[in-house]
């Protein structure tokens, strides 16, 4: 069998490539990329199975998630893996990027590898944003309302972008359908395409190694396969065990079904968007756009074009004071804002003195429903004998 495959496929060449030595001093931080890829595969697998029992309509989405949780065998576990896997993916991708920045691995000739990596970060956040609307609970609804409103504050095209995302005037059936399509078709295609390109570039340029690697060290370390692959697999196993424990013992939150009139609900996004949520509080009136558009966009563009802005060849961190300062400030700001957002007190208002009025509309609502008379057959698809005869006559005439 092996000979059969060898005669037809360049397996020996692939194996020789995989056995090429890595640079010396490769440490555990170099497994973060593999862990991110593992999580992407885990999300794809669990998501594909969750989709078997999910229906992306406002009438059914919430019940479908409840059904998965309560009735489908292993449903709670699969949903738990998917939920906690999403959080783990954001953490691992963030740490991976941080490692690349601190080791200066984005520098020439690996600029494109970096750019594709930053695009993958955006795709990861896109997965998060489109994914948490799907349960159609309070958090899903309100976080999406706020998220889309943030995009509407962008100059010139903001409103247009918001309408395209919503698919209508407000978050509803079309929005849910669009987000589901983005989450399960568009973004996965994009993610796997970008991951393929990222891996190709990583293998093409080889590992950047650590800052203390000399040119002689670059090809004298352990081989990628099996040494590094084994370490990566052990890392994946540890991560999977952690996620499995979380899925088994930490319940995945599902709040009440989305209610656009529930003002008692304090909307909060998922923890990985809390820093942005908190940031928005500090820019008032005409400066609102700084928090909603300018800072996130400029920050992301700086990240994207980092290799073209920092062209020095120095990789050792203490010889790059600007990079070290900016990175430290960003990390402290993101972590600090996340903590502030998570611990922000909920709003307490004094109850209104008058009870809520549930309007009993006097004018009939604008519906296309027609009254059905008593005894009328609504779904009568059975033809009468007379109708069958008529149909025969028409057929004969046409011949």
């Amino acid at each position, binding site marked *: 069998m092996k000979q059969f495959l060898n005669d037809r496929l360049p397996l020996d060449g692939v194996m020789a490539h995989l056995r090429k030595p890595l640079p010396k001093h490769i440490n555990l931080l170099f497994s973060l990329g593999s862990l991110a890829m593992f999580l992407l595969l885990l999300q794809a697998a669990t998501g594909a199975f969750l989709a078997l029992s999910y229906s992306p309509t*406002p009438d059914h989405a919430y019940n479908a998630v409840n059904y998965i949780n309560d009735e489908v065998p292993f449903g709670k576990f699969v949903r738990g893996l998917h939920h906690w896997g999403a959080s783990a993916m954001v953490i691992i991708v963030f740490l991976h990027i941080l490692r690349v920045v601190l080791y200066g691995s984005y520098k020439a000739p690996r600029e494109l590898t970096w750019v594709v990596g930053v695009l993958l970060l955006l795709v990861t956040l896109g997965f998060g944003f489109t994914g948490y609307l799907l349960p159609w609970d309070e958090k899903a609804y*309100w976080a999406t*309302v*706020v998220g*889309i*409103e*943030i995009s509407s504050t962008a100059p010139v095209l903001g409103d*247009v972008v918001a*309408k*395209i995302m*919503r*698919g*209508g*005037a*407000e978050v*509803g*059936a*079309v929005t849910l*359908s669009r987000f589901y399509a983005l989450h399960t078709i568009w973004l996965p295609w994009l993610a796997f395409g970008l991951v393929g390109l990222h891996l190709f570039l990583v293998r093409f340029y080889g590992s950047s190694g650590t800052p203390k690697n000399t040119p002689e060290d670059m090809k004298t370390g352990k081989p990628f396969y099996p040494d590094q692959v084994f370490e990566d697999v052990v890392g994946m196993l540890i991560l999977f065990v952690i996620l499995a424990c979380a899925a088994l013992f930490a319940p995945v939150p599902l709040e009440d079904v989305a*209610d*656009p*009139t*529930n*003002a*008692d*609900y*304090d*909307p909060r996004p998922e923890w990985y968007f809390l820093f942005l*949520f908190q940031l*928005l*509080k500090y*820019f*008032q*009136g*005409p400066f*609102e756009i700084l*928090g*909603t558009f300018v800072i996130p966009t400029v920050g992301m563009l700086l990240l994207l074009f980092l290799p073209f802005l920092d062209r020095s060849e120095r990789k050792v961190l203490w010889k790059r004071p600007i990079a070290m300062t900016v990175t430290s400030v960003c990390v402290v700001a993101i972590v600090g804002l996340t903590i502030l957002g998570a611990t922000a007190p*909920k*709003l307490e*208002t*004094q*109850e*209104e*003195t*008058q009870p*809520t*009025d*549930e*309007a*009993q*509309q*006097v*004018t009939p*609502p*604008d*519906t*296309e429903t027609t009254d059905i008379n008593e005894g009328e057959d609504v779904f009568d698809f059975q033809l009468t004998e007379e109708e069958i005869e008529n149909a025969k006559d028409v057929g004969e005439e046409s011949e």
Partner: protein
Amino acid sequence: MSKEGRRSFLQIATACIGGLMSLAAGIPLIGFAISPAWKKGESQWVDVGTVDRLKNSRFKKVNYTFTAKDGWVKATKKRSVYVTDAGNGEWSVFSRTCSHLGCLVRWDESKESFLCPCHGAVFDKTGAVVAGPPPRPLQKLEVKVENGLLYVKEA
């Protein structure tokens, strides 16, 4: 024609055919995806209750429903507003949607203010911004009274 000339012609022709097909498929596909951008919303008058029932209301929370098209479905939409009877047949109805990022504001009787639970916005009883990030006042809905019913205009 030389071999070089023939090959450069084939290259250009291949690029042209590919470009043409991309345009022919791409324009309708993009139009399909972004069509909500130029769809105009339809406004309608919705009754929120009888004038008798709402008489003397002061920032009274009223929830109501109406039917509107949402893509392929006629959906029942839920809304919540604050209604005040200003006397002399004048009414003020505030939308509860915060003008910042769309969360629902709450009327606080002791502070005589609308408070937003999301980013700390505060509006006074006229809907003007007192504190927090909103760039605009709270939206006051258009109202009318007909046949003893109070109507608001839903955009």
